[in-house]
């Protein structure tokens, strides 16, 4: 009866979301605290109800209850427990339920934590969040119900795509969805502020923690996805400009722009209209991602089963919710107050430029993602837009932005002093140039563009450090004074420094790996060897091993350098019994930040003895690609812990003053 209780809970959640809207709107109209409060109660209850439905579905997956259609289609009794749990969000229906869980979760958080908000904005935020919840819950209940039953359950389930049976991918969707859906609060706050006509510095500060939290979660989610693609797909790459990757990247870019423009609105009251626009755009891009993955217009490892009807429904949801919000924006934006003025060289101008470049970069990604789809729909001709397009469009915008990053935080508000900034950054310039020159001198083959890119990463890292040195006057005042200043720095400042530092680390890794990776592939017999860069890889042998739900051929490969043993790895080629798919389990030998990445390919039976296709990659500095974003997300969290953003704290501090 657990499944049926979950099915009831899901429908109850829909009802609660609808009444959440009604009560909040009625409360706002009558200025009735009781009604608005009841709306908040409904938001909390809706979350509990969705959580119950989610728990029921998860239980069905754990006990392999194949009378639930979704479990039968996506699980298998031999699957390890972790992947049975992860199967809950491994399908279209289940992931929609996860989406609803995050949506009502953020709705409940907004209702529960929003006590520092003015009543009007608060009730309208809860109402908007309720509208989003109602729409997506209605979609889930009527068009994509994960708790539907089958009368004659099959003996076995059809199992989850084995590529998705991976620890990183088990946790990737929850982070990604929390990030995507976290933007919904920002969206709701923007709608509420437009309705109330209150878009000012205070509103911007209310938005910032939600945007920061969502951005950090999205950063972690995207990084986990990239890391999974790196070691699970066995192609040696970590980003393919796949439309679904782009779909997660666009809201991230917009959220990054939003975080920066919100600072201007908060400190100077300027750019209010633009900040609201970004707040609406961030969740719109999240919904676009949800649509792209489920519409069946894409062929991708991420794409769920093709179902045009559901795709059209999601497109309608996307069009109506965003369309209404942007119409509201167009109507109210002209009445927004002008903020403070600023000179062409100032922190504000730098942040405006940051926003222009980020927005332009987002547009190139949007174009590269949608153009092939639109063209295929119009002419039936399928074209592929790949890395060359993005290298020519996205990369120049980003490179321009990266050059500016270290200068921004050193510029004063209102009117900056360009000469002073240059003076303060000259050490960083020297370090960056040094890094680039060293790269040219030491790394072979020589690649000028690659060296410039690595230098750019060094520029970001050195710039971030310079910023802290400047703020604490390190090396110019006594150490104790520097320490006092360091501990006095607001967490938000530390968060920014960490985020910029992480970006630099990422750029260095990404450029170095892309420019200097080396590939080799050869069919090796037992005892055979191949060379990859300075390393020598020997295939010692291949033996069969049995996993819980797969049979694998496990290779033992030894890596040596100049005759000295470096490491031994055991890549596998797995055959999943349930679906008959094969996957590779990559063997990675870590050398500092660099990886020797080994893949066991298919068996070649022709010829004298059995041979195996072995692919080897030398991926220099690859760890930095994943470490950088982790530092960035950490920066987001540190910034989020700033007491100035902590809700409720301010009020308590206010009383003694």
């Amino acid at each position, binding site marked *: *009866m657990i499944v*049926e*209780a979950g*099915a*009831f*809970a899901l*429908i*109850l959640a*829909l*009802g609660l979301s609808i*009444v959440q809207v*009604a*009560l909040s709107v009625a*409360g706002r109209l*009558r*200025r009735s605290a*009781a*009604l608005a*409060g*009841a709306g908040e*109660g*409904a938001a*909390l*209850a809706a979350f*509990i*109800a969705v959580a*119950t439905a989610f728990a029921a579905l998860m239980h069905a997956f754990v*006990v*392999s*209850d194949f*009378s639930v259609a979704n479990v039968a289609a996506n699980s298998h009794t031999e699957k390890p427990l972790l992947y049975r749990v992860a199967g809950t969000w491994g399908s279209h229906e289940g992931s929609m339920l996860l989406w609803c869980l995050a949506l009502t979760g953020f709705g409940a958080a907004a209702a529960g934590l929003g006590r520092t*908000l*003015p*009543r009007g904005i608060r009730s309208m935020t809860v109402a908007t969040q309720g509208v989003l919840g109602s729409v997506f819950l209605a979609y889930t*209940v009527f068009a994509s*119900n994960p708790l539907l039953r089958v009368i004659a*359950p099959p*003996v076995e389930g059809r199992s989850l*795509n084995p590529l998705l049976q991976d620890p990183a991918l088990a946790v990737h969707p929850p982070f990604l969805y929390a990030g995507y859906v976290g933007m919904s609060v920002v969206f709701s706050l923007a709608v509420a502020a437009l309705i109330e006509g*209150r878009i*000012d510095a*205070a509103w911007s500060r209310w938005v910032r923690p939600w945007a920061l939290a969502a951005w950090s979660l999205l950063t972690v989610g995207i990084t986990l996805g990239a890391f999974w693609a790196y070691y699970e797909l066995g192609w040696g790459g970590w980003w393919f400009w796949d439309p679904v990757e782009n779909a997660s990247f666009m809201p991230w870019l917009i959220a990054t722009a939003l975080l920066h423009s919100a600072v201007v609105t908060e*400190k*100077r009251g300027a750019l209010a209209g633009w900040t609201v626009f970004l707040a609406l755009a961030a969740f719109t891009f999240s919904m676009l991602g949800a649509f792209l993955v489920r519409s069946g217009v894409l*062929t991708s490892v991420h794409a769920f089963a*093709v179902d045009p009807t559901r795709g059209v429904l999601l497109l309608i949801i996307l069009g109506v919710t965003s369309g209404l919000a942007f119409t509201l924006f167009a109507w109210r934006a002209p009445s927004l107050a002008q903020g*403070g003025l600023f000179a062409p060289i100032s922190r504000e101008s730098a942040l405006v430029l940051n926003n222009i470049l980020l927005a332009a970069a987002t547009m190139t990604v949007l174009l590269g993602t949608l153009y092939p789809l639109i063209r295929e729909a119009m002419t039936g001709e399928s074209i*592929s837009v790949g890395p060359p397009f993005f290298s020519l469009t996205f990369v120049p915008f980003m490179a321009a932005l990266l050059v500016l990053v270290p200068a921004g935080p050193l510029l*004063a*508000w209102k009117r900056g002093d360009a000469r002073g900034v240059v003076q303060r950054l000259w050490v960083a310039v020297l370090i960056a140039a040094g890094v680039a020159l060293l790269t040219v001198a030491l790394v072979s083959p020589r690649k000028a563009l690659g060296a410039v890119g690595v230098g750019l990463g060094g520029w970001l890292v050195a710039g971030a450090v310079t910023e802290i040195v400047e703020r604490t*006057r390190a090396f110019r005042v006594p150490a104790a004074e520097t320490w*006092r*200043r360091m501990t006095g720095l*607001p967490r938000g400042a530390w968060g920014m420094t960490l985020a910029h530092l992480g970006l630099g680390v990422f750029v260095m890794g990404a450029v170095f790996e892309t420019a200097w990776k080396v590939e080799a592939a050869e069919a090796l017999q037992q005892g055979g060897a191949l060379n990859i860069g300075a390393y020598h890889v020997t295939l010692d042998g291949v033996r069969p091993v049995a996993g819980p739900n797969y049979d694998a051929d496990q290779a033992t490969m030894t890596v040596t350098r100049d005759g000295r043993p470096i490491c031994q790895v055991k890549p596998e080629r797995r055959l999943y019994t349930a679906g008959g*798919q094969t996957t590779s389990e990559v063997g990675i030998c870590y050398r500092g930040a660099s990886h020797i990445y080994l893949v066991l390919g298919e068996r070649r039976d022709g010829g004298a003895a059995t041979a195996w296709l072995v692919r080897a990659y030398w991926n220099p500095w690859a760890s930095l690609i994943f470490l950088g974003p982790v530092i960035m997300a950490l920066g987001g969290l540190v910034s989020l812990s700033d007491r*100035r953003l902590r809700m409720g704290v301010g*009020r308590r*501090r*206010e009383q003694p*003053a």
Partner: protein
Amino acid sequence: MLLFWAVAGVLAAAAAGLILMRAAGASAEAGVADPAPALYRRQLTEIDELAERGLMGDTERRSAHAEAARRLLAAAEAPVQAWNADPGARRLVLLAAIVVPTLALGLYLKLGTPGMADQPYAQRLAGWQHSDLGALQAPEIAAVLRQATAQRPNEAEGFRLLGLAESASQNPIAAVRALRRAAALAPQRADIWLMLGQAEVAEAGGKVDADAAAAFRRRLVLQPGDPAARYFLAGAKSDAGDRPGAIADLTALAADLPAADPRRTQVQAAISRLEGKPVVTADPQQLAMIQGMVAGLAARLETRPDDPAGWVRLVRAYAVLGDTTKRDAAHASARARYAKAPQILDQLDEAARTEPKP
């Protein structure tokens, strides 16, 4: 049913409770002032704090201070529209708290499957274990045997039976897996090697691959001259491109078989096909079975197309059956799907080149 009503009741009560509690709490706080002025006042103190610690220049401090003060003034002077406790709303709130769960229950009774019990796998498996084998279907027998072999992992016979049940459940990969275990446990049993070889052939979509050939060779060692093993090994030769060798082996096999043996016609048909002559007969029953399996695979790929190995098997199976139209269609569609994965394309091309089988 009791559990359902308990969960539904608790949920409905919790929802109603939360709505009523928050309504009452908010009523009590109706008079709280707008938080914006407080926030601006806090901004002012922050600016001072930063300046005191030397983290903000004097000019910057002055202008920031002036701006924040202007905002504070504006916020403090903004007309405040008071909210009221609205005791009259209580009835409305109570109504909502009762009506929503009731309507939700009504909708559930229409959309859900009221009264349908959970069916966890362990419970169903226990049911099959205690029922009459004859009443069970092949996949159910396979499930019971899987459980049994897990408990007695050293008995070859269990795995052999499991292999049979998996074959009958149209699950060639699982059949191969089980029979490999059986063969490893009882390497002296010639019957298991033959079954394993045939299962490997079925798994490879009709191709006698290296794994299958190895199994048939073991069978020949244990049972010298065995016609079935020789037949399949000749197939392996033709798959490797050695057509004359295959014909020679099959001709020798046909000569060794007694004239009355029905298998002789099958061997003759294979020879004719290899020689490019029209085929006289083929076993229609076996053909129908293979075609059924291929159709099943095609249908599965239709619904879950992201399965490179499945596409390779399908292309190879059509090639083996000699159905060039379907082979080319499947080949083209799979090539388009995996255009970016060269190693899958290689496998697909190789599968498409497979020779048709007798």
